[in-house]
C-alpha cells in the first residue's frame, strides 16, 4: 500500500499526480474464502479490515452488489456520538468512539473526524429528566457528558431560538463534547483501502442470490458471478438484511423504512456543532463545505425505494426553522433517502443465526454510521473466533425470544 503523507503529495505533484496507485484492486472472485462478508458499506468493510489486520484472517472477500459505500454509508448525516443509556449499548458505541479517535492514523486515511460536540435538546420537563438520567448513566460508564440549561445552550449556539416564544422552548440539553461528525465516504474508502492492503478481495457489482446450506451449516453463496465457497459468512446489508435472511430460511425482527436527509446550498461557517432535537424532531450540522446537513424522522411505512415522502421533508424543515429562524430563507440543494433496518428495541442485531456459520450484523436503524468502527471490530472478532465478542453478545437476535431487550428509543434519538 502506498502510504499517504504531505511528503508524498509534494512528490506526486512533480509527476502531475499521474502516478497514484489505485486505492484497491478489482480482483476476480476466487472459488473459496475463509470468510465472506456480504455488503460493502462502512460496517462490512470495517469488518473485513479488522479481520485481516487484527485477527489474522486474510483470506476474506467482501461482496457488494452495487459500489462501495453506496447505501446508507453515503446517505447518512454523519453524526458520531456514544451517549447511550444502557450499559450494553454504551459499551458498544463507546468502543466505536475510541476507535474513531485514532481512526485516521490507523487507516492512514483522513476520515475528517471532527469532535465538535453534539447537543441533544430538551423541550419539556420530562425531556430534561431523561437527559439527566442518561448523562448520569453515561458518566458511570466513563462516557463524557454534561447537562446544560437553556443559557448554556444559547452560549454554545447563539443562532438558535432559545427564547420563551418558541412553540417548544429549549429548556436545556445533554452535551457530549467528544461527539461530532466524520466524512462518510472517506470512512468506506479508508477501510476498503486498508482491507485491500491486507489481502482482502473486494468484489463490487457482485450480487448474492442465495446461500449454500447443507445440514444447517453454510458452505458458500450463489452470486451473479458464480458460486463462492466459505464456511463463515457475515451479512452486513442494512436495509436489505431481511431479504438475505429470507434466503437463509428465517425471519428477522426488522422493518426497512425510508429515512431522508437533505443538504442546503453552501453558506459561510455559522454552526460549529451538531444540534439534535427529539421533540421538535430534527437534527442539523454544517459540513466543511458549508452545506447545512439536515435529517429527521423515518417514513412510517416499509420501503426499499431509497426515497421518502414530501410530508416528511416539510415536517423536517418546519422543525429546523422552528429552532433556527435564521435558516428560514436558506435554499435546499438535494434530498435523498436511505433504507434503514429498524429493530423493535432501537438496538442492533450482531448475532449468530439458526444457520451455523451464518452471522448477521444489522438492525442499526437510523444510527449505524456512528458505530462503524466498533461494529466492524466486534463483528470481526466474532467471525474469527466463531464465538460472539463480549460486547456483541447482548445483541443476539434471540433476545426477541428471551425478552432481554435493550430499549434505546430515548438515546437512539430523533427517529426509530
Amino acid at each position, binding site marked *: 500500500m502506498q502510504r499517504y503523507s504531505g511528503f508524498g503529495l509534494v512528490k506526486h505533484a512533480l509527476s502531475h499526480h499521474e502516478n497514484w496507485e489505485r486505492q484497491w484492486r478489482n480482483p476476480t472472485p476466487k472459488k473459496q474464502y475463509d470468510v465472506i462478508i456480504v455488503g460493502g458499506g462502512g460496517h462490512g468493510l470495517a469488518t473485513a479490515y479488522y479481520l485481516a489486520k487484527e485477527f489474522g484472517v486474510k483470506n476474506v472477500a467482501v461482496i457488494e*452488489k*452495487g459500489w462501495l459505500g*453506496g*447505501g*446508507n454509508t453515503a446517505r447518512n448525516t454523519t453524526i458520531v456520538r456514544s451517549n447511550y443509556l444502557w450499559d450494553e449499548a454504551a459499551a458498544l458505541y463507546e468502543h466505536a468512539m475510541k476507535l474513531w479517535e485514532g481512526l485516521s492514523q490507523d487507516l492512514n486515511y483522513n476520515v475528517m473526524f471532527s469532535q465538535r460536540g453534539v447537543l441533544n435538546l430538551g423541550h419539556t420537563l420530562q425531556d430534561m429528566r431523561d437527559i439527566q438520567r442518561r448523562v448520569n448513566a453515561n458518566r458511570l460508564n466513563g462516557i463524557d457528558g454534561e447537562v446544560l440549561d437553556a443559557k448554556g445552550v444559547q452560549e454554545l449556539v447563539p443562532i438558535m431560538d432559545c427564547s420563551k416564544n418558541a412553540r417548544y422552548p429549549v429548556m436545556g440539553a445533554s452535551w457530549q463534547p467528544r461527539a461530532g461528525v466524520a466524512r462518510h465516504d472517506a470512512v468506506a474508502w479508508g477501510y476498503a483501502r486498508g482491507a485491500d492492503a491486507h489481502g482482502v478481495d473486494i468484489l463490487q457489482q457482485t450480487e448474492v442470490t442465495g446461500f449454500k446450506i447443507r445440514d444447517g451449516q453454510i458452505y458458500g453463496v450463489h452470486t451473479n458471478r458464480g458460486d463462492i465457497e466459505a464456511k463463515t459468512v457475515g451479512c452486513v446489508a*442494512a*436495509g*436489505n438484511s*431481511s*431479504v438475505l435472511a*429470507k434466503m437463509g430460511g428465517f*425471519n*428477522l*425482527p*426488522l*422493518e*426497512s423504512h425510508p429515512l431522508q436527509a437533505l443538504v442546503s446550498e453552501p453558506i459561510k461557517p455559522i454552526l460549529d456543532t451538531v444540534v439534535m432535537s427529539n421533540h421538535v424532531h430534527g437534527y442539523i450540522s454544517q459540513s466543511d463545505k458549508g452545506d447545512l446537513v439536515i435529517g429527521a424522522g423515518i*417514513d*412510517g*411505512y*416499509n*420501503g*426499499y*425505494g*431509497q426515497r421518502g*415522502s*414530501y*410530508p416528511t421533508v416539510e415536517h423536517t424543515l418546519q422543525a429546523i426553522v422552528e429552532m433556527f429562524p435564521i435558516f428560514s430563507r436558506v435554499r435546499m440543494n438535494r434530498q435523498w433517502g*436511505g*433504507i434503514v*433496518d429498524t429493530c*423493535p428495541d432501537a438496538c442492533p442485531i450482531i448475532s449468530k443465526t439458526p444457520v451455523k456459520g451464518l452471522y448477521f450484523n444489522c438492525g442499526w436503524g437510523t444510527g449505524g454510521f456512528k458505530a462503524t468502527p466498533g461494529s466492524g471490530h466486534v463483528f470481526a472478532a466474532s467471525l474469527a473466533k466463531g464465538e460472539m465478542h463480549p460486547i456483541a453478545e447482548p445483541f443476539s437476535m434471540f433476545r*426477541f*425470544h*428471551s*425478552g432481554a431487550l435493550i430499549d434505546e428509543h430515548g438515546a437512539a434519538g430523533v427517529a426509530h
Partner: protein
Amino acid sequence: MFYIYCPYCGEHREEEEFHPKGQAHIERPKEPEACSDEEWGDYLFFRDNPRGVHHEMWVHAVGCRKFFNVTRHTVSYEILETYKMGEQPSITADSQGPSREAAAVSQKEGVRA
C-alpha cells in the same frame, strides 16, 4: 406522495390524512399463556419485510378513523389495492409478477443499495 383510496370513505385521499400501522393480517395467538417464548416473540417482534409486494395496515387518522389494509410494492411504492379489515387481499406476491413500475425502478442505477 401517496394518494390512497380509503375503502370506507370510498374515495382517494392525500397521504397526510393517513398513518401506516405495520404488517397486516397478524393474528394474536388464541391462547397467549400456552405460547412458548419463541412463538410469543415471533408474534410480537418478527415481521415480514419483503422487497416487493407487501400487505400492511393503514389508518385513515384524519378522516373516518378506520383501519384498513393496503397491498403495496415496497420498491416502486405502487399501491396495488386497498381493502377493508377482515377481507383477504386479491393481489399477492405469488399472483403478481414484478409490476411495470417496479421493474423500471429496480433497473435504474442508484436504486441498487
